[in-house]
C-alpha cells in the first residue's frame, strides 16, 4: 500500500510541477488570439515531453547517467561544450523569466515594488532549497501548483462550445506566421529541456534502479499527461473569456482574470497561488538544471542529497544561477519577453540534447533488456524529426512575428 501511495504522491507532484511561466503565457495568448484553433499543438508538446522524460528516467535508472552525463559520454567534448553553452544561456533566461514571474505575482498579492519582490522571491526560493530536502522540494511546489486546476474548472464552468473544442484538436494549416509561431511556442513551452535535466538528475539523486521503471512510466504518462490538461484549461478559458472580449494577455497579471471572472475572489486567490508556486517551482528546477548541467559536464560532485559541503561547486552553481537571473531582471527586460525568448530558444538546442538520450536508450550495451521498446523506439525517432523541424523554424518565426507581437 505504501508503495502505491508513494507513487501517487510523486505523480501528483509531477502534475503540479508541469506548468511554468512559458505554458501560462503561450496558452493564455494562444487562446486569446486563436480561440480553440491551436489546441492540437498542446498534446504534441505533452506527448513529446512524456516520451523524452520517460527515456531520460529509464536511462538514469538503468545506467545511473543523467542527461548531461549522457550528452558528454555519447557526443564527446566538442558537441558537449556547444550544447552546454547553449543550454546554460537558455537556462539563464528561463531562471530570470521565472523569478520575474514570482516577483510579478508577489506584487499582485502584496502590492510593493517589483524589483524588491524579485529579490525577496529569489531569496525565499534559495532558502527553501537550502533547507528542504530534495523530495520535499518537489512535493511542496507540486502540490501547491495543483491550484492551477482552477483554470480547468473555469474552462468547464464557462461552458465551452464542445464542437469547436473538438475541432481545435484537429491540426489545421493556416497561412499566418503568428499562427505557426504559437504552434512552435506551445510545443516548445511543454518541451522545456530544464524539466528533463532536473527529472533525470532527480532519478539518479533518489537512487532509482530498474525496479523504478514502472514509476518512471507512470510519472511520464500520467504526470505529464494530466499536467498538459492544465495547459488546455488555460487555453480554453482564454478562448472563452479573452477572445470574444478582445483582451490580449500581455501581462502575467491578466491571466488570473480567467479564474476571477467565473469564481470571484476565491478563483483569483487560487489562480495567483497556483501560478506563484508553479513558477517558483520552475525557477528552482531551472536553476538546479543549470547547476546539474555544469557539474555533470565537468564531472564534479553534484546533487542536493549531498549536503552543500559535500558538493561545494554544485551549490555555488545553482546560487550563481539565481544571482545571474536577478541581474538579468534588473536590466528591466519585461519577464514576458524573457519568457518568449527562453521558450523559443530552448527548442533550438533541444535536438542536440534529445539525440544522445535516444542513442543511449536504444543501445543494448548500456541498457541491457531495458532498451527502447517498439513504441518508444519508433516514436522516439518520429519526435526527433518533429524537434528538428520545430528547431529550424523557431528563430525565423520569432523574428518574423517579433516575439508574437504580430
Amino acid at each position, binding site marked *: 500500500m505504501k508503495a502505491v501511495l508513494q507513487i501517487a504522491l510523486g505523480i501528483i507532484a509531477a502534475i503540479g510541477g508541469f506548468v511554468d511561466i512559458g505554458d501560462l503565457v503561450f496558452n493564455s495568448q494562444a487562446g486569446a488570439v486563436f480561440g480553440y484553433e491551436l489546441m492540437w499543438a498542446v498534446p504534441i508538446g505533452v506527448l513529446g515531453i512524456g516520451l523524452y522524460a520517460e527515456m531520460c528516467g529509464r536511462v538514469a535508472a538503468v545506467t545511473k547517467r543523467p542527461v548531461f552525463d549522457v550528452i558528454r559520454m*555519447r557526443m*564527446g567534448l566538442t558537441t558537449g561544450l556547444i550544447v552546454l553553452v547553449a543550454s546554460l544561456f537558455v537556462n539563464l533566461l528561463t531562471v530570470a523569466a521565472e523569478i520575474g514571474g514570482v516577483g510579478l505575482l508577489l506584487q499582485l498579492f502584496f502590492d510593493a515594488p517589483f524589483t524588491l519582490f524579485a529579490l525577496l522571491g529569489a531569496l525565499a526560493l534559495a532558502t527553501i532549497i537550502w533547507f528542504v530536502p530534495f523530495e520535499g522540494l518537489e512535493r511542496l511546489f507540486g502540490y501547491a501548483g495543483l491550484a492551477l486546476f482552477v483554470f480547468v474548472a473555469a474552462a468547464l464552468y464557462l461552458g465551452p462550445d464542445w464542437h469547436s473544442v473538438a475541432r481545435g484538436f484537429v491540426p489545421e494549416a493556416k497561412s499566418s506566421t503568428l499562427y505557426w509561431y504559437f504552434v512552435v511556442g506551445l510545443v516548445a513551452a511543454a518541451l522545456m529541456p530544464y524539466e528533463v535535466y532536473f527529472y533525470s538528475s532527480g532519478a539518479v539523486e533518489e537512487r532509482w534502479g530498474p525496479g523504478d521503471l514502472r514509476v518512471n512510466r507512470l510519472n511520464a504518462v500520467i504526470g505529464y499527461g494530466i499536467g498538459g490538461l492544465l495547459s488546455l484549461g488555460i487555453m480554453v478559458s482564454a478562448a472563452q473569456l479573452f477572445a470574444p472580449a478582445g483582451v490580449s494577455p500581455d501581462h502575467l497579471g491578466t491571466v488570473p482574470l480567467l479564474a476571477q471572472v467565473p469564481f470571484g475572489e476565491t478563483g483569483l486567490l487560487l489562480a495567483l497561488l497556483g501560478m506563484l508556486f508553479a513558477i517558483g517551482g520552475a525557477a528552482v528546477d531551472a536553476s538546479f538544471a543549470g547547476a546539474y548541467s555544469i557539474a555533470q559536464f565537468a564531472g564534479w560532485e553534484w546533487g542536493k542529497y549531498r549536503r552543500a559541503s559535500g558538493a561545494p561547486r554544485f551549490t555555488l552553481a545553482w546560487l550563481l544561477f539565481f544571482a545571474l537571473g536577478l541581474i538579468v531582471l534588473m536590466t528591466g527586460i519585461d519577464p514576458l519577453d524573457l519568457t518568449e525568448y527562453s521558450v523559443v530558444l530552448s527548442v533550438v538546442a533541444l535536438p542536440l540534447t534529445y539525440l544522445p538520450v535516444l*542513442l*543511449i536508450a536504444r*543501445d543494448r*550495451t*548500456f541498457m541491457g533488456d531495458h532498451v527502447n521498446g517498439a513504441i518508444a523506439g519508433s516514436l522516439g525517432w518520429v519526435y526527433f524529426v518533429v524537434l528538428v523541424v520545430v528547431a529550424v523554424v523557431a528563430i525565423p518565426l520569432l523574428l518574423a512575428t517579433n516575439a508574437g507581437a504580430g
Partner: protein
Amino acid sequence: MSAGVIKLSRLLELRVEAEDGTPVGRVHDVRVRRVDGRYEVEGLIVGPRGLLVRLGWRRARQRDVLAWKDVMAVDPDRLVVRRANSSARRM
C-alpha cells in the same frame, strides 16, 4: 623509435593514409585488449562507419578494426599504415 607518449586525442585527430598515400579516413575509436595484465591497443576503428560506431549506432565488427601492427609510422600530421585496410577498400 623510442617508446613515446601518444595522447588518444592526438590519434583521433590524425589522417590515416596507406603506404602509397591513399587516404583511409579518420580514427574514430581505439580498441584495446588485455594482454597479461596490461591493456594494449589492438587496432584503430577507422573510416565513415567508425563514426556510426562511436555514436553507438552500429557495432564495430572485427574487420573494421585496422590492426596496430599494420601502423608503420605516427607522423605529426598523419598515421601511415602498411596496406589499405579491407574496410577502407570497400568505401
